[in-house]
């Protein structure tokens, strides 16, 4: 409940602002012809990007977790790193190379897919590592082919994770402004930004942002329905073994590697190479480098803090959402998604409004910035935690309780360890997305604190691309940190659970 209320701060702010406008004004803003057209364009973009991300993300996740492809650790790293490439940097890289040819709908789909497919891939990988091989063996024993088993049995088990990831992609696309504005594809967020930037009027922005919340709720409800009531938990007793890996023949290994390489080139290689070109072309190269180390340190620091806070906030919501689907829990879960669908500037202004009034002592200090990050990216953690918890049977918890464990004990010794891969993935997702966050960072960071994203913005806003390049490159390199942490989590995951009361 508390988590929901915190997550709803931005919505409360929007209601307050919209309330000031008066019904007539609200109707006038919403019923403009252009609003409807832009909503449709936004939805079209969102659907295309989400579908493509599911295809790319699930394919990559399957190859990386369920085959014996050599160099899986390496490819996992490479496939995760695009998440650290800010969408506006990727967009700029494509536009500066291909000019007008890449702009518009096609370019936006390409760039946003390249930047967000890891949002589907990571939760899917976490789920595929946790599925029970026994089910697959049953299917194989009944004569299903390996591929057939994978598609009908394995992916079915990973469905909540895939749905959670797609939801993140959809919300990210809906709220993105940086990439679409550079790629010149006119969508809904643009009206919101225009309202702030050109008219200095917060009312239309608030009304339209609220409309975005309504759309988001519709999408999250649809996602929840798609999850259905199917139980994904392991049946029967005993401990799961590590999942089976398909042995690829040499030809398939080449094909799989080729596929991963193409994705990596498009999503990571291309932006990174253009960074190199910025360095070679520009004369501002090397200026402002003295602040790189400081910016990198604070970026890692606040992002890691935000990841911890978001995961801890997500645990109760995610666990309840997986175990007890009461109306209140569902409401809380949907509420937690509000922050993610709103453009960063809207959430930032909401936190300015509440921060300066409620908590002036931490206004423009690290704690408020971290809390804002947590609200913005809470859904990344909630979705993954919920999907992971859903994979373990509630029977384990019942047994633990019957053995005399308290609720906390059950949580600590059974639920959380079982969901560990998902929790790790959630933390990494939050950390990666925090690292590149800009609008909220600019308004809420402590005075004088740099992050890599703010330095990148400082230089690109005056067209000093060569000076900006090292910051963008560092951002991508640092993405290795949460990714490695996450894969270590998988390696050290306990395979047995001790049930004796301590």
């Amino acid at each position, binding site marked *: 409940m*508390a*988590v929901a*209320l*915190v997550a709803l*701060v931005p919505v*409360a702010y929007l209601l307050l602002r919209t309330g000031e406008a008066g019904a007539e004004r609200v109707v006038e803003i919403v019923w403009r012809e*252009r609003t409807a057209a832009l909503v449709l364009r936004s939805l079209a973009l969102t659907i295309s990007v989400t579908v493509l991300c599911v295809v790319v993300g699930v394919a990559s996740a399957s190859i990386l977790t369920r085959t014996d492809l050599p160099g899986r650790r390496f490819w996992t790293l490479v496939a995760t790193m695009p998440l650290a490439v800010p969408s506006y940097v990727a967009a700029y890289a494509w536009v*500066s190379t291909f*000019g*007008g040819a890449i702009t518009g709908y096609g370019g936006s789909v390409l760039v946003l897919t390249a930047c967000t497919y890891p949002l589907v891939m990571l939760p899917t990988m976490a789920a595929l590592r946790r599925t029970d091989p026994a089910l697959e063996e049953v299917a194989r024993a009944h004569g299903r082919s390996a591929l057939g088993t994978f598609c009908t049995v394995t992916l079915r088990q990973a469905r909540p994770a895939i749905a959670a990831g797609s939801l993140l992609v959809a919300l990210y696309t809906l709220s993105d402004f940086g990439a679409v504005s*550079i790629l*010149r594809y006119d969508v809904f967020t*643009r009206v919101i*930004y*225009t309202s*702030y*930037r*050109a*008219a*200095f009027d*917060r009312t239309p922005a608030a009304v339209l942002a609220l409309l975005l919340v309504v759309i988001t709720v519709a999408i999250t409800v649809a996602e929840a329905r798609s999850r259905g009531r199917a139980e994904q938990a392991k049946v029967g007793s005993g401990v799961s073994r590590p999942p089976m890996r398909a042995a690829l023949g040499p030809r398939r290994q080449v094909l799989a590697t080729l596929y991963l390489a193409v994705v990596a080139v498009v999503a990571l290689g291309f932006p990174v190479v253009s960074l190199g070109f910025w360095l070679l*072309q520009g*004369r501002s190269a090397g200026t*402002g480098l003295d602040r790189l180390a400081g910016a990198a340190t604070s970026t890692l620091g606040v992002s890691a803090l935000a990841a*911890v*806070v978001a995961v*801890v*906030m997500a*645990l109760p919501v995610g666990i309840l959402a997986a175990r007890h689907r009461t109306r209140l829990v569902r409401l809380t879960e949907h509420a937690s998604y509000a922050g993610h669908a709103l453009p960063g500037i809207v959430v*930032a*202004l909401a936190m*300015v*409004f*509440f921060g*300066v*009034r*409620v*908590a*002036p*002592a931490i*206004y*423009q200090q690290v704690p408020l910035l971290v*809390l804002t990050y947590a609200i913005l990216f809470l859904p990344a953690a909630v979705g993954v935690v919920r999907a992971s918890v859903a994979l373990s049977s509630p029977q384990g918890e019942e047994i633990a309780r019957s053995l005399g464990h308290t609720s*906390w004990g059950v*949580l*600590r010794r059974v639920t*959380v360890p079982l969901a560990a891969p998902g929790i790790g993935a959630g933390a990494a997702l939050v950390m990666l997305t925090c690292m590149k966050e800009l609008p909220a960072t*600019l*308004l809420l960071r402590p*005075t*004088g604190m740099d992050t890599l994203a703010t330095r990148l913005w*400082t*230089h690109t*806003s*005056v*067209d*000093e*691309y*060569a*000076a900006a390049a090292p910051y963008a490159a560092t951002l991508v390199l640092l993405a290795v940190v949460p990714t490695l942490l996450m894969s270590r989590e998988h390696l050290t995951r306990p395979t047995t659970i001790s049930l004796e009361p301590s």
Partner: protein
Amino acid sequence: MTLRRTLGALAAVATLTTLAACGTDDAPSSTDAGTAAADAATDEDATLLIYSGRSEDLVGPLLADLEAAVGVPVEIRYADSAELAAQLAEEGDRSPADVFFSQDAGALGALAKADMLADLPEDVTAEVPEELRDASGSWVATSARARVLVYNDEQAPEVTGFDSVDDLLDESYAGKIGYAPTNASWQSFVTALRVMRGEDGAEQWLTQFAALDPVAYEKNGAVLQAVNDGEVAVGLINHYYWFPLAAELGEENMAAQIHFLDADDPGALINVAGAGVLATSDQPDAAQAAVSYLLSQDAQQYFADETAELPVVGGVTSSVYDVGSLDEMTGARLDLNDLDSLPETQALLEQVGLL
């Protein structure tokens, strides 16, 4: 053990925050503004806080010198002008900021309209021409820039002969003009068009312009880049964008060149960056001293030499760039106070399909 503790602590934090949030919903404005500001800055009492919408790369060195001139420690928060204006509006009377240094007049005008800016004393603003300050004295221009045409010297060398934005309205430029529809200075230009030619005249120009399918870019810098890359032949931007790009790529490598239109053409409108003192500032004297410093000879010379802008105080000319001076551009020096009809401008732009 650790997990339990963390969970407990976090639950506590979350609950506290929530309780606090509920508490304020009831009475957002009942608390004394002064106490809140003091709470926020107990140990920063002597610090002057500047919200700067101008980029650190452009004005950082200048603001570093400002500290010595003002005599108190200075802290600066950089972000986009419009976002900062929105932030100041949300902070309301609890804003910790003392000075707002804005990239454009619109953001300052919006704050002045909300009564958030204190009147500047006449002796601070005296040297700036009246049409470059707010009529009620709540903010003042600190530097100026002219709207110009930027052209690709291979694709459209004839632009050097242009006198007016009307020369652009030719079929041969269909699909070859770049502009930044959401940019504040483009919209100021359209406002100038309305003020100088009337609503019908402006609508006529914009309709013809829209018929040429101009290419919309995110910002002025992107328009300039597109002209330089030959993606479009001509663009409408502010003059001073050209200089940093020329410095970045080397002047000899620039395919894009800028052309100043006739001084009395709306396409040669003068826009400004400016500054104001927040009405809630707890350091009004230091804040005024900061604005004074931005209008000093040193600062004006800095704008002329480093950012290639036009000084707003007489007698200062750039020793680096050949950009002319404000005195030569008398014609389009519309009174900035006449340019505050932004909603009408945006309505017109929407009507002709350019926004």
